[in-house]
């Protein structure tokens, strides 16, 4: 069986089981996700939507008492790769499969340092290149005009919506191919939510987006496809 023939598939999950402290959270989940699209993951609280996201960038691995079985493949640089394979460098995976959290989590440093942080981790030293990429990513996140004169300010001084866009921009700066968002607008007001929805719609040309959302209107507005989670498994595709 040769899956890689189907070039439109970006993420392929096969027979995924996940349990937390011996309690099953996901059972035998199998799904494909197409590239350059927005998929909304919906369903009631506690059915494993966030957990599912974490299996795609292996962020669950540090949780005590969590265990996973199954296969997750993601097409990176044109090649479908098993992300749990030994050859997959964890830091590389996280740069290519970026994540934005429910509550904006800028680091306690300036806006510029927040943006430069992933590049610093990657060992980028060329200052002008760093600045150029910061501007590019902030523009992509529609935040540049609002922050260009205050890059040295503490990122925590921004409004909630701005902080979340900063986190999206920071995730984009490593040029990821997949962007995972865990209820990115749940702590924001209507206006900020609308700005971020528009931003995500614009981003799908560049990358594949999976977004966990509680809000039905939001799901309808922005997603190309809806995956509903219910009691340990996916019910509708």
């Amino acid at each position: 069986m040769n899956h890689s023939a189907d070039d439109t598939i970006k993420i392929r999950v096969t027979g995924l089981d996940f349990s937390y402290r011996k309690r099953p959270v996901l059972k035998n989940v199998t799904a494909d996700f197409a590239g350059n699209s927005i998929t909304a993951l919906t369903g009631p609280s506690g059915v494993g939507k966030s957990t599912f996201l974490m299996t795609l960038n292996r962020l669950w691995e540090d949780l005590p008492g969590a265990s996973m079985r199954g296969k997750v493949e993601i097409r990176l640089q044109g090649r479908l790769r098993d992300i749990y394979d030994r050859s997959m460098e964890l830091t590389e995976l996280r740069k290519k499969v970026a994540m934005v959290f429910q509550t904006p989590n800028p680091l306690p440093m300036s806006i510029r340092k927040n943006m430069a942080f992933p590049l610093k981790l990657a060992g980028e030293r060329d200052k002008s290149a760093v600045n150029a990429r910061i501007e590019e990513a902030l523009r992509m996140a529609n935040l540049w005009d609002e922050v260009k004169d205050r890059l040295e300010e503490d990122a925590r001084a921004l409004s909630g919506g701005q902080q979340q866009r900063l986190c999206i921009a920071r995730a984009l700066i490593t040029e990821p191919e997949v962007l995972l968002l865990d209820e990115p607008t749940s702590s924001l007001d209507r206006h900020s939510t609308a700005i971020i929805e528009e931003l995500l719609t614009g981003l799908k040309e560049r990358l594949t987006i999976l977004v966990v959302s509680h809000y039905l209107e939001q799901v309808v507005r922005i997603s190309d496809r809806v995956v509903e989670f219910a009691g340990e498994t996916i019910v509708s595709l």
Partner: protein
Amino acid sequence: MKTVREIAAERTFLLSALASSSITVGILAFMVFMGLPLLHEGGFFAILGNAWDPYRGAYGIYPMIAGTAAVSLLGLAVAFPLSLGCSFLTAGIAPKPLRGVLRRFIELMTGIPTVIYGFVGIFLLVPIIREFFRDGSGMCVLTAALVLGVMISPTMTLFFRDAFDRIPRAYLNAADALGASRAQKLIHVMLPLAKKGMLNGVILALGRAVGDTLIALMLAGNSAQVPSSVMEPARTLTAHIALVIAADYESPEFRSIFACGVVLYLFTMALTFLVRYLAHGEDARI
């Protein structure tokens, strides 16, 4: 309305609070009072600055202050890198199962009585230092500082760990999700954010090093001279008190230990205030 029981409880608690705080003040007053005759003879600062030479009537505690400073600061210099390494290992560099085991060991080490450390120091480290440097008896500032450093480092490590544990999960998630390796996360995120808590650990460990009696008494050689190198013996304030108290009760030597007590007391209090002051600073920013 407060009931009689509530009022009674309040009064009782107030009384116990007053009792324990007045004991603290009382101890200081007692030490100052007992040291008064010495103060009359030469003034307080003369005692602090003078040499110890009982045959000529000089009861200055300067050598002991210097000895304490040498042993405890060097001990701190030994303990800091040890604790940093241990806390890094248990906070994330070591594989998960090993982290737990290491942590247990470190917690266990805080409970080992000081005298055991001193004992091991005498039979293990003293001969090594003596043979290796071929200079003196092996009981010197270096020996005491090495053992003291090992002794205070578990406490310091636990403080460091505690500072790491208090870092908000959101920041760690951010670092993980942005592709930071475990070492990068430690250096670029955890260390800067834990700085304040770690400084507290260092200060309190210094307090422990200064206050410790047995290690210096058993290993530093106890000569009441200002040490001119780490290979020379020294006597700390605490060891001085222990040595003099064992000898007699009435002499001017005996009076001098109250001056030592006052110095130790004031130093510890200064450290406590420093920790309090640091605890009130603003939020950490990298």
